[in-house]
């Protein structure tokens, strides 16, 4: 039964939510429209939702004329996202499976070993020295995949608690008694039952790989050809800043990039950077929400 008050509350709710939705989407809309605006019109009138003149020039620039570097960066983004996500999920499943075993000898130690990484870390400087001096990751593609992103304790604990609550102990014991090896139990019994959480963890990992710009910024110094799309966007913006701050820095700022593309081209690259997320989002939104809820307070 809907009372008058319910309706009034709902109207207010719709108004507030409509404003927030507008707020959430409008910057993205502005970005897409600017990428389709004629560059001269944009320079003259500024960023606008109703541009004077539309143009596909920015996309032509990327795909037909000069965009080799953009397309390459795009390919690298896809590569690290796919490879990184697959490895990340496998590592997380393996470790979470072990921690979910009730009577695993040393379980307390291993759990602490994992949790501790959430509480204390060496921070940027020691990590940087470790990866550059010991593992020589600088200027390699591994620098985009390995540091910090490959696996994290949060996802391990998330998956572990799903294994404990969502996969009945009796089924695992039954598989053991039937003579299944641990590997068979994990791949044939546990994994199919844990599909929702695997999807969630895969998505968390996938998004952090796609959006990462940090690793490339820290570890790719000379090999700008290994830049992901985010690194490329970051570098473009830095160059522009350097130009506006200090004109004599041009040569320095341009290292690795032949020229600075126009505003609309930059907006087109940024649009391409968001595109895969917008395309995939409707399909993964549910498991994403589920993951956040599961992580809940522990987040």
């Amino acid at each position: 039964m809907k009372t008058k008050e319910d309706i009034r509350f709902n109207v207010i709710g719709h108004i507030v939510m409509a404003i927030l939705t507008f707020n959430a989407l409008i910057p993205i809309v502005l970005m897409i429209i600017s990428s389709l605006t004629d560059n001269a019109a944009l320079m003259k009138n500024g960023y606008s939702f109703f541009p004077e003149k539309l143009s596909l020039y920015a996309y032509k620039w990327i795909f037909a004329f000069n965009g080799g570097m953009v397309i390459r960066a795009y390919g690298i983004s896809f590569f690290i996202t796919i490879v990184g996500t697959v490895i990340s999920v496998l590592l997380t499943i393996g470790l979470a499976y072990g921690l979910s075993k009730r009577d695993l000898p040393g379980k307390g130690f291993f759990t602490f070993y994992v949790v501790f990484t959430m509480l204390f870390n060496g921070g940027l400087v020691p990590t940087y020295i470790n990866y550059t001096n010991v593992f020589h990751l600088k200027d390699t593609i591994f620098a985009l995949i390995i540091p910090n992103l490959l696996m994290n304790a949060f996802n391990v604990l998330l998956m572990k608690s799903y294994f404990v609550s969502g996969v009945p102990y009796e089924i695992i014991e039954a598989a053991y008694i039937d003579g299944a090896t641990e590997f068979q139990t994990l791949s044939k019994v546990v994994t199919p039952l844990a599909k929702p959480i695997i999807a969630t963890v895969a998505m968390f990992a996938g998004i952090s790989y796609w959006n990462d710009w940090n690793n490339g910024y820290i570890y790719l110094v000379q090999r700008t050809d290994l830049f992901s799309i985010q690194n490329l966007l970051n570098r473009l913006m830095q160059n522009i800043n350097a130009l506006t701050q200090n004109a004599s820095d041009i040569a320095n700022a341009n290292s690795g990039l032949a020229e600075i593309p126009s505003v609309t081209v930059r907006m087109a690259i940024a649009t391409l950077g968001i595109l895969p997320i917008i395309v995939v989002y409707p399909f993964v939104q549910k498991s994403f929400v589920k993951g956040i809820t599961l992580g809940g307070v522990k987040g």
Partner: protein
Amino acid sequence: MSKSSIAKKGSSTLNRKRFKRYIPVYLLMFPGLLYLFINNYMPLPGLIVAFKQYNARKGIYGSPWAGLSNFAYLFQTNDAWLITRNTILYNVAFIIINTVLAITVAILLSEMWGKVKNFYQSAILLPHLISSVIIGYLVFAFFSVENGFVNNFILEKLGIEAISWYSEPKYWPFIIVFVSSWKAIGYNCIIYLSTLLGFDRSFYESAMIDGATKWQQIKYITLPLLKPTVIMLTLMAVGRIFYSDFGLFYQVPMNQGALYPTTQTIDTYVYRGLLQLGNISMSAAAGVYQSIIGFAMILGANMLVRKLDKESALW
């Protein structure tokens, strides 16, 4: 042989058997454990670089000791105070504003009917999935001095002179807090919404029979029931008060030196020290300062959470 020693012997062979049975499990766990070792444990001894006068050629262990001089230097400058103040104040603002917003939105959504509420929820979560580099671009589209939407359309229409946003630190606390809410609201409201939907509807039904208004229901039923969740989430956030979202503070102000007074946090300071200034020892000292106080805050917050509700504690 006494009974207990037999039992002991029995259990130790059982343990060995169990251990043998689990060898394949250890193998499955091994790659993950190894990764954590490489990524999280191996760098730890490197923390001593904060106590050294770092020389890249000599490496961490070969560099001469500097005692506490890196820390002394850090705290003598104004920087230590500035980055601590910024980090903490921003976090306090985020905790208060984002919590209030998230609860408001969660309550509104929970009372709504119709499919459109799913659309709202998806839309406000979307900013959470955008990389901070691109968020920097979006903010730039609004605040760029020459072409920005705010200067060109809003201020011009109002007859206000264009503002040079990227060289005026005073505006940035508002912009940063706004961007942070923009990014976090969808994420935070999900947790509150799922808590809200779990409440026993009979409370509300009996309140309605007693003639309670919507506002009274929210004030006397919903908010008190939400209190434990709010306390938990807030304590967890307080535990992280010494850390900041690096991408937000680095990308959104476009790394502009003029904005450092209001946008520099511990994380961006460490980063700039390492990569732009090449002052590794000082940067490491700031990092150690953050790690240690951050660790103490997390331990303290978790201890409080454990006292209130054991289930919600991190460990």
